[in-house]
């Protein structure tokens, strides 16, 4: 199995303002992120030879071509629930590695707010889909909360620890002009907010937003040939772990970890040769759809021991200040917490944040970290016991 490490480069990226974009349509979001990416890469649309559209709501590759008037080139529409954005990048990267194309576009987009959609699928399941494995209604927070309850009961984690995660993410997002929510919150505010799905309150949950992000990619060996800038980043590893969905019928699933995240991170570390993620990786943009999701990432990605996340949260290990003390910064961009979660866009948006941090171009100077060389993106769809997880590791070429 050939490693993808450093073989594929991201040479241009774009990201829309995320939020309630009632002012624009889905095509406008595509145009907004693609235009920034093309300008950033210094190329034109006609230079794109193939594209990957990541969206859960738009079917077929046509919306991308319709919006951008692509020149009858191949467009694949991919969907992997909340992992969709990273799935688009994964597809594009492997096509480049296969030398099927030279310059490609991966774009994630979602337009959720037009449908007046509530957070986390308020409808719940009513037995639809090919195999209605569980005919019960529960929302995304209702399902994630199952793990919070268990983590509390087993490890003594408290609601305040989850609140501290949200406080940190809002602190970061408040300084990100592209974010949906740009206001700092306090632990007290988080603890006193309305309950959504006990023990998860309002500030434990991310919002629902419209947004898009895009990446222009080529093989690393061709960067110079095509005249791209030299501050490109390379793909170090790509992972996908598709769970069996048996967490609700297997007695040995403990609701204390995300197996798919663990498995995907192991794929990443193996491909990239990472021995100690806490020492080697600088930033992680993780799928913090709920505060408990980020907490599990600390543990399951190996940044701390199982059950000890609360100690690191109290120590501020994963904050900007923690990074400056030699730690790891989680969701320095603000995370889903600040951006909301336009399903197909989030993975590409995480990649954008890592790209900018590595280049030293964070949109606001106070959020720019020093010497970022390696950043990991993480998206997972589904719910505890039933995830599909996509991950990617990016960095400075050769390092």
């Amino acid at each position, binding site marked *: 199995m050939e490693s993808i490490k450093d073989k594929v480069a991201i040479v241009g990226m774009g990201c829309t303002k995320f939020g309630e974009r009632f002012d624009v349509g889905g095509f406008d979001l595509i145009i907004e992120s693609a235009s920034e990416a093309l300008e950033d890469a210094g190329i034109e649309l006609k230079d794109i030879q193939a594209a990957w559209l990541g969206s859960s709501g738009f079917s077929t590759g046509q919306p991308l071509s319709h919006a951008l008037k692509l020149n009858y080139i191949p467009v694949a529409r991919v969907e992997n629930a909340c992992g969709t954005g990273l799935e688009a990048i994964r597809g594009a990267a492997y096509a480049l590695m296969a030398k099927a194309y030279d310059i490609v576009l991966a774009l994630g987009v979602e337009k959720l707010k037009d449908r007046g959609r509530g957070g986390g699928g308020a409808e719940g399941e009513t037995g639809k889909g090919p195999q209605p494995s569980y005919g*019960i209604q529960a929302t995304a927070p209702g399902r994630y909360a199952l793990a919070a*309850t268990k983590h509390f009961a087993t490890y003594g984690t408290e609601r305040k620890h989850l609140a501290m995660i949200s406080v940190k993410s809002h602190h970061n997002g408040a300084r990100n002009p592209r974010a949906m929510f740009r206001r700092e919150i306090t632990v007290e505010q988080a603890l006193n907010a309305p309950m959504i*799905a006990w023990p998860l309150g309002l500030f434990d949950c991310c919002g629902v937003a419209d947004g898009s992000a895009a990446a222009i990619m080529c093989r690393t060996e061709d960067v110079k040939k095509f005249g791209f800038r030299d501050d490109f980043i390379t793909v170090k590893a790509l992972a996908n772990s598709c769970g069996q969905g*048996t967490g609700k019928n297997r007695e040995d699933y403990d609701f204390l970890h995300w197996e798919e995240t663990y498995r995907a991170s192991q794929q990443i570390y193996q491909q990239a040769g990472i021995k100690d993620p806490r020492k080697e990786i600088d930033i992680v943009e993780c799928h913090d759809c709920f505060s408990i999701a980020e907490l599990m990432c600390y543990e399951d990605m190996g940044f701390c021991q199982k059950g000890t996340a609360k100690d690191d949260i109290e120590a501020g290990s994963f904050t900007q200040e923690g990074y400056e003390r030699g730690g790891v910064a989680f969701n320095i961009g603000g995370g889903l917490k600040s951006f909301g979660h336009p399903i197909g866009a989030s993975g590409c948006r995480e990649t954008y944040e890592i790209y900018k941090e590595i280049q030293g171009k964070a949109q606001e100077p106070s959020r720019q970290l020093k010497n970022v060389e390696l950043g990991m993106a993480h998206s997972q769809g589904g719910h505890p016991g039933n995830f599909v997880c996509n991950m990617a590791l990016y960095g400075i070429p050769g390092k």
Partner: protein
Amino acid sequence: MVGITSAGAYVPIYRLARGDIARVWAGGRGVAVAGERAVANFDEDTISMAVEASIDCLKGIDREQIDGLYFASTTAPYREKQSATMVAEALDLRREIFTADFTDSLRAGTNAMRAAIDAVKAGSAKKVLVTAADCRLGALQSEYEQNFGDGAVAILISNSGVIASVEGSYSHSNDIIDLWRTDTNTFVNASEDRFSVTYGYLENVQEGVSKLLERYNLSPKDFAKAALYAFDARRHLELARNLGFDAKTQLQDSLFNTVGNTGAAYALMILAATLEEAKAGDRILFTSYGDGCDAYILQATDKIGKLKGRKGIKGHVASKLPLPDYTKYLRYRSLLGELALAGEPVATINWRERNWSVRCHGSKCRECGKIEWPIQRICAYCGAKDNYDEVRLSDKKLTLTTFSKDSLARSVDPPIIVCIASIEGGGRFYAHMTDRDPDKVEVGMPLELTFRRLYSKDDIHTYSWKMRPIR
């Protein structure tokens, strides 16, 4: 000897003080009737309540031996489509049984009992389960809104292992418009109640009882108990007095003040309560009313003690939660509008998945022995393909592993308590918790399974199992 070989009952956990209903209508017709009434939870209907009563009745009895199921109600969930079939599926009975619905009369319960007795006598069946349930709506502001209660009962009719033998019976039919409802009526219509009571209830039951006693040459003093259908508490006493039964020693409590008038299930529920207290040799007079009268002479046998260990009427009446207010009652009965739920037509899915969703079967792997619910064709533990036995899990106890209180999910009674629980003897269950106080849910609490209506969409009712704190 044909008779009753077992009996079980069900009363929903919620009770509404009748004074709380009256208070809403105060100043108009808001006169409080004494006591409280049972109110079915929002996820209950006559099918689910009949399943509960039947499970109680069949405790310790091999379900494979049941060869008939009669369901009686005036408020079956469907106008066209049998309900007995769904009750039989949920009870995990054999496919080769005879099922029938008895309906349209408050006498439907004892009509079904009569048909079961006749079937056993005729030799066409050995064990017939008769279950009756009702969830009737009295018109808003009317005394019937307060009088009615929700509940269910089940009796097993057979000619072996009889706990109460049928010693005599009498029936007559009488056409009268006293309480009635058409296809399009939400609430039960009622004639002037002095007319209904005088020429309907009292005249018919008195006629029935005197003809029955005359036929078998018995008098009121020959009976240990009179289990009499009650129009309401006051008329129940009036009937007993007119018949010559001593209200203190012979008259079985009508459950009117604790449960309410449960329609087609009512007479049989009073009978079930009588049997719970009966001693061997007790002779029991039993009557129902509705479009005529069914009257029975029953006698408890020396096997009457076999009823013990069931929750029955007594256990269910004692196990209750107060319904906080009248608005909840209106919401539970969809009188403030239906809750809109997303979803797709589910007839095919409900049919295809019925073994795990309705029969509550899990798969037990023949290779590694692990149990999974829902049924898994490929074992999640050892990977064995299509090599499992189906096992019934609905009668197992559970322990709560983890939970959440989902206030975002649409529900008539938020928050939805989302639960993961471990099943005694192996397996894991994922379902909502019902009949619960959200403030008293904790990891490790013991739970049991209960058959409920999950949701209704496109006029299709979807049923499956939920968890509840042990009642």
